[in-house]
């Protein structure tokens, strides 16, 4: 078998295998049962709670959870804005990079606070090392927000009457101290020993063998890259993200980065099974997500390995695949796999340039972000699938003519309305934003935005808005996006695309938790069966197709049929 395909298959299987014990561990952490790190992290957490005057054992209702979450996000936004706009005189700036403009700082701060990491700058020239470290801090804490929100929803799924929803601060803190920090340390050390830089020295000047004088950017890369993947953040240290040979040294680091970004989204599904003691239900969700993932990823690997048909026509050997925007050490198969993994789980890091992938691969990348629930981001993937589940419960209820129930709680008009509004917000933001951008381009053909003409140019704008809404952060990077229009418009889309899909599910969870528990009877709709899995999958397919098919026709599909 082809060694490139073998590499992809191996890392997929390894990810699933490791995620099962990790899921059990994650569940134990949030349940508060004893775990390995208690002697080290226990005292640290106690100290943190003490100095910040938090009673970690106190149950919060859903409104209080949201208040706590939003207030800490606001603090991060303000501090980050301040740092990014003053980097030029703050310490740790060996390259003397300038401060950010207000609109770029606005976009960047929001982008990293919301775990998206859309980047309208390049790390080499756009940030000081203090700026890089500040963004690295946000990669830890924004991932922890998603995980904490997911656990709040888990609590509502436990089948007791009116249970508490737990304590936000407790889940948030433990996500970092027990999960994100230890695994990142491990990853960063391996990266360092593979040759990834971890230094505070600035750019090095070097004369090449042929005699050209060039510079080489460096920095504290390894610690940044570990959390960028583990927290499904995806923001690159360098402009080229994980395509950069110092940000992704060799095939081993490539495989490890694929593993790190997949671990928590997978583990959260299994953790749900252990946490709410419904492992069959978790397995069903895992099945739905895996099916969606495979349907998107297999065509991408195949298409990218086939190469660009337009270049085949020139008579060139295409056995390596479509190599534009790809690195030889990663290869076409792994780049095709990465392009879908990073888009289904909202990492948004890249090891090859998506702008140069084939039209149908680009479409699958877009679809992965539009659904955003086939595994989905760190914690928030669970929230997105939760919305689809509520809708599926509602529709199934209508079909069989019963009041819909989920986990022993009646799902009524209010919950369904919240779920529908949350689900419909995405198409509104994506299409509204793209329409506005397209209108700007049509009326000002001189705008230096598009790097490619025609259908592909439209895809660049559609991709940017989709990526912002999905809090993904990857891009068709040819788009000239460091200007007030894109900085501000995507900044707003990012905010809505992050907080509404958190507020919606937490609110539903809170409402359901307060309802009377109805014991299961013969008339109860079973939600852990294959049939219900098919129902969820159909809901996802129908919602996505109805919302996005026209836009995809104008972009990638048109490009495919005219090539």
């Amino acid at each position, binding site marked *: 078998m082809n060694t490139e395909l073998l590499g992809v298959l191996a890392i997929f299987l390894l990810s699933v295998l490791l995620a099962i014990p990790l899921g059990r561990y994650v569940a134990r952490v949030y349940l508060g049962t004893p775990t390995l790190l208690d002697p080290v992290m226990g005292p640290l957490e106690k100290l943190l709670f003490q100095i910040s005057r938090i009673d970690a054992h106190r149950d919060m209702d859903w409104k209080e959870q949201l208040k706590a979450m939003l207030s800490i996000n606001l603090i991060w936004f303000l501090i980050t804005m301040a740092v990014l706009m003053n980097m030029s005189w703050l310490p740790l700036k060996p390259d003397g990079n300038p401060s950010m403009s207000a609109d770029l700082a606005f976009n960047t701060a929001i982008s990293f606070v919301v775990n998206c990491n859309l980047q309208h700058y390049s790390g080499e020239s756009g940030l000081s090392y203090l700026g890089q470290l500040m963004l690295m801090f946000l990669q830890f804490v924004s991932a922890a927000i998603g995980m904490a929100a997911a656990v709040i929803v888990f609590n509502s799924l436990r089948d007791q009457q009116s249970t508490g929803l737990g304590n936000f601060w407790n889940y948030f803190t433990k996500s*970092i101290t027990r999960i994100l920090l230890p695994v990142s340390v491990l990853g960063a050390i391996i990266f360092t020993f593979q040759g990834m830089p971890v230094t505070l020295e600035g750019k090095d000047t*070097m004369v090449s063998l042929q005699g050209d004088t060039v510079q080489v950017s460096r920095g504290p890369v390894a610690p940044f890259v570990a959390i960028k993947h583990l927290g499904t953040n995806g923001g690159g240290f360098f402009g080229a993200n994980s395509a950069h040979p110092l940000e992704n040294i*060799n095939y081993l680091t490539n*495989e490890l980065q694929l593993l790190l970004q997949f671990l928590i989204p997978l583990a959260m599904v299994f953790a749900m099974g252990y946490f709410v003691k419904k492992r069959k239900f978790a397995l069903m969700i895992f099945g739905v997500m895996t099916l969606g993932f495979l349907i998107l990823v297999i065509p991408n690997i195949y298409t990218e390995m086939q190469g660009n048909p337009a270049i085949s026509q020139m008579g060139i050997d295409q056995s*390596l695949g479509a190599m534009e925007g790809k690195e*030889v050490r990663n*290869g076409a198969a792994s780049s095709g796999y990465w392009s879908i993994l990073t888009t289904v789980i909202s990492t948004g890091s890249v090891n090859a340039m998506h702008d140069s992938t084939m039209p149908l691969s680009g479409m699958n990348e877009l679809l992965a972000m539009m659904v955003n629930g086939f595994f989905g981001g760190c914690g928030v993937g669970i929230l997105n699938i939760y919305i689809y589940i509520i809708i599926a419960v509602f529709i199934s209820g209508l079909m069989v003519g019963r009041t819909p129930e989920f986990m022993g709680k009646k799902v009524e008009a209010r919950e369904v309305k919240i779920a529908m509004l949350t689900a419909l917000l995405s198409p509104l933001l994506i299409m509204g934003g793209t329409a506005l951008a397209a209108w700007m381009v049509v009326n000002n053909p001189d705008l230096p935005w598009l790097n490619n003409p025609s259908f592909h140019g439209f895809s660049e704008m559609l991709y940017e808005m989709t990526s912002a809404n999905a809090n993904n952060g990857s891009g068709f990077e040819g788009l000239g996006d460091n200007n007030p229009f894109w900085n501000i418009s995507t900044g707003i889309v990012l905010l809505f695309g992050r907080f509404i899909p958190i507020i919606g599910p937490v609110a539903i969870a809170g409402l359901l938790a307060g309802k009377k528990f109805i014991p299961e009877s013969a008339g109860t709709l079973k939600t852990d069966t294959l049939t219900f899995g098919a129902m969820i999958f159909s809901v996802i397919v129908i919602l996505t197709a109805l919302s996005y098919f026209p836009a995809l026709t104008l972009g990638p599909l048109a490009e495919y049929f005219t090539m």
Partner: protein
Amino acid sequence: MKTHIFSSIVLTFSFMLITMGGYTGLVWGIGQLAPNQGKGITIQQNGKSYYENIGQTFSDDRYFWSRPSAVGYNAAGSAGSNKGPSNPDYLRQVQDRIDTFMVHHPGISKAEIPADLVTASGSGLDPHISPQAAYVQAGRIARTRSIPEAEVQKLVSKHIEGPWLGLFGPSKVNVLELNLALDQQ
């Protein structure tokens, strides 16, 4: 609400200290034991120092060529071309690269040119080419350096880095290392 703001501020600064300071410091400290103390792996030859993982421009006929680059192999920055697969300007550019390659390599058929030699990498700093891309240039190297082609082929074979553990991923050749070895012949 006030208590939330207070808790938020204290927790924020605590975690900034833990992640930006503690975590980075720990990895940096352990990194002092890593190759070249975590400053990037370098190769020395003839008193000059190069980065093993950062590709270089090779356009001279006496050297194996690197892949085309959107940033001219200047690692002050990094980027791909971001050209779409159907972009007519881009396809013309690829055609030009093929034509240039054919001029410098008489006797080679187009079907022998692998895709990586006429396409730009994602970073613009790709240090590798495929083994096919090295072999197809062997004839030119042999001519310009007046050494037997078989010897050049042998040198290339020696520099092929196979899949990881012999099982996973593509084979590749580090262009800089190959050219350094050429110079030492």
